[in-house]
């Protein structure tokens, strides 16, 4: 029977096809981009080698995937597979990917990896994929102009050296009164969405565009455009990008890593030390005044006292606060820097200030300026609102009785009168602050409102 013979060409053809495809698959798998860079690096090393031992070492460089495994950051960063010279300062100025990474002493690669700051796709070993510029990867590498945003992931307070843009963004966030409508870290209003994870969800382009014309990206949004310079918008964008909601373990939270007077000062305020102790004659009298305490006591005594007050002065009634060691160091260094005169200025609401000054601080704290303007001048557009389609200024507060002002602030104005009765609801309304604001704050705020002149 001859019929098989006519199938032989098919056999040859298909055999060759499978063989060829297996080879193609092998080629794709074996000749990866990163191997070329490792060979390039080895060549450079060999080139730079002067002694026979160095030459030997350069020749023995293995071709292998390099990775930094960071379980606490839930990351595996393989960036150093191509970026081989990040720790070698002799590679400063060399073309990427073989360039040196300056300023990494405080953030060693083996503990931080790369993507916690730069973003991108740490597990990838191909250029475009690793840099996150591929479909279905949500965090492309952060442009260098926004890189300070990453500091905010760990550094919650204004204590990051060399991050002026982040500090500016943070200040603008407060000034613009964003928390009047948005919650951040559990504090703020309900009119707009929470911002805790906004940095993980939105791209820099989106954020910047949204600040300038919110309604263009979110149809129906009542958020007023941020009328600031491009640089300020970029700083705000940068601050937002840092709000990723990533939960980092203790090691990475700045308070534990950089003890210093800034942190101590914040703790001093948070823990209410001034309730018992006084500085410069202001504060409580239960405990001793703290002026010059570092002259009276040694640092060692202070540290031990923070750990357990009763252990070192038996009659002390000061509670044991369970500070961490780095918090204790921060507090101690803050006490060393106490000068008395301006010690209370850092408190959220300065105790020695006039009611109007305190009221101004309350105004900023609750983000009133987000809608009513930084100084109560109003003017934020509110579509279809009876009040001239905008949020009214607060300069007329003086004409109203305390009870009215109080009820405005505590209960809000949930229904805003419509300009056109058949038109849509005005997007912005006055929320009630009654469940947040304390009585003293309320009184101060009213004093501030009464001080506003048209």
């Amino acid at each position, binding site marked *: *029977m001859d*019929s*098989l013979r006519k*199938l032989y060409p*098919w*056999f040859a053809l*298909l*055999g060759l*096809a*499978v063989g060829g*495809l*297996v080879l*193609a*698959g*092998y080629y*794709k*798998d074996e000749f990866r981009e990163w191997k070329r860079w490792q060979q390039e690096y080895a060549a450079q090393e060999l080139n730079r080698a002067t002694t026979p031992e160095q030459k030997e070492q350069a020749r023995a460089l293995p071709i292998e*995937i390099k990775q930094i495994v960071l379980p606490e950051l839930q990351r*595996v960063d*393989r960036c150093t597979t191509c970026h081989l010279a990040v720790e070698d300062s002799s590679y400063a100025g060399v073309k990427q990917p073989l360039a040196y990474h300056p300023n990494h002493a405080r953030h060693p690669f083996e503990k931080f990896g790369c993507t916690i700051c730069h973003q991108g*796709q740490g*597990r*990838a*070993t*191909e250029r475009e*994929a690793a840099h996150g510029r591929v479909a*279905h*990867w*949500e965090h492309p590498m952060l442009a260098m102009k926004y890189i300070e945003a990453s500091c905010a992931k760990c550094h919650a307070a204004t204590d990051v050296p060399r991050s002026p843009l982040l500090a500016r963004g943070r200040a603008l966030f407060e000034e613009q009164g964003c928390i009047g409508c948005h919650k951040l870290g559990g504090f703020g209003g309900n009119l707009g969405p929470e911002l805790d994870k906004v940095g993980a*969800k*939105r*791209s820099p*382009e*989106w954020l910047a565009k949204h600040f300038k014309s919110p309604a263009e*990206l979110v149809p129906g949004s009542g958020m007023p455009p941020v009328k600031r310079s491009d640089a300020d918008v970029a700083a705000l964008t940068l601050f937002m990008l840092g709000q990723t909601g990533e939960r980092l373990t203790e090691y990475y939270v700045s308070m534990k890593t950089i003890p210093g007077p800034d942190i101590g000062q914040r703790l001093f305020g948070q823990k209410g030390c001034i309730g018992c102790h006084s500085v410069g004659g202001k504060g409580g009298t239960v405990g001793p005044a703290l002026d010059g305490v570092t002259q009276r006591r040694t640092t060692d005594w202070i540290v031990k006292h923070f750990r357990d007050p009763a252990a070192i002065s038996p009659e002390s009634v000061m509670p044991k606060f369970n500070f961490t060691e780095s918090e204790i160091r921060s507090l101690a260094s803050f006490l060393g820097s106490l000068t008395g005169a301006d010690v209370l200025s850092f408190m959220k609401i300065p105790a020695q200030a006039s009611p109007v000054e305190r009221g101004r601080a309350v105004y900023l704290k609750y983000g009133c300026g987000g809608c009513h303007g930084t100084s109560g001048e109003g003017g934020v557009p509110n579509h279809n609102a009876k009040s001239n389609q905008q949020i009214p200024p607060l300069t007329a507060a003086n004409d109203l009785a305390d009870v009215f002002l109080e009820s405005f602030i505590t209960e809000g104005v949930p229904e805003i009168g419509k300009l056109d009765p058949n038109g849509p609801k005005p997007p912005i309304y006055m929320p009630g602050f009654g469940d947040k604001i304390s009585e003293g704050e309320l009184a101060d705020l009213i004093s501030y409102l009464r001080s506003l002149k048209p």
Partner: protein
Amino acid sequence: MKSLKQIWLTFAGTRVGQSIFRVGLPESNLGRMQAMVSSFLLHLHPAKVHRHSLQFSYTLGLGLISLYLFLILCITGVALMFFYVPSPEHAYDNMKDLEFVVSAGMIARNMHRWSAHLMVLCVFLHMCRVFYTGGYKPPREFNWIVGVGLFVMTLVLSFTGYLLPWDQLAFWAITVGTNIAGYAPVVGKKIQFLLLGGNIVGESSLLRFYVLHVIVLPAAVVFMIAIHFWRVRKDGGLSRPGEPDVLVQQSETGPLSTSKTYGLMELARGTSPAVGLKPEDEVPVWPHLLFREILLFLATMAVVMFLSVFWNAPLEEFANPTHPPNPAKAPWYFLGLQELVAYSAFWGGVAVPALLLVALVALPYLDHQRVGIGVWFARERRVAVTIFTICVVAAVVLTAIGTYFRGPNWDWVWPWAASAVTPH
């Protein structure tokens, strides 16, 4: 070549070689047939096969291709299991590692993915082939039912595998797919809960789907394939025109006496499937069928490798239960049902699939006249052929609509219209 054969013959001639191969390398048709009978692997085949069964235009090789795809899936699947942890924490990262650091990891995943899609397609086409050539008619009714079972198993296998990468595609396809199951009256929600191990797709769903995908279903499929093949031979090989009417006759044997012992031949009833074959119609399986089988394997491999080298299996963003894609689509082979669900949850989710399944199972018992067997689209069967074709066309059209013509909110879109890209 000569020397290779020489080496083999020398080895086969040793004590060890003889103990393994028993008949050695056959030199004649008789020897080849002996080899077929004496070798475990080759014994799946008969020693001789009807010429008609070798015609590619008759079978299109679809059953065998399905088997090959299943074997490729088993092998690549086991390879992938070495690198996979069925937990939401790791599954997605495992996919990334397969792509970026595991040697041949991506190609193994690609082969697995494309073979799975192809297998769904080939098993379906195989079913169509058997229908159009009347292959389900007596005596092959039961094997048709086993085949329907294998088709359902193939769908479920593919569906359970769909979840494992734990990306957006997986998460939402399974959410939509299990929602369809939830539309069944009374038990629907219970079944959905049982499948998912909860009310939504989560950690326990992944574990359940994994166990089903790597152990329970493959074992069941292997078992059913064994029955399927066994029945092919017991029912007289592949269907062909001009088969004798009844291959197995129930002959009357009187009550067996207990006072004597019987040999096998005395107990076996009826005639064997070989009855009615004329010697000149048959050819030895070795080499005529075996060669074609190898050829078909090469062709299957070539297609799978081609797809795998040039197109990567998809992997979208990490699964996010709070961020559904619009539209969320089930795996493609369920999109016909999803399209129906868009009109009526009851009809699409319950009635139509249930009716189809019942109709497929009942088919060989309703349509049992032994006419038009072994011929494509036999004239005598035009009613059955027309009804089946309408169903197939409807399924294909609905699936195509669901796949290519449905956009956000399941609204009609033209596939060539550029979709609006929304930044996020």
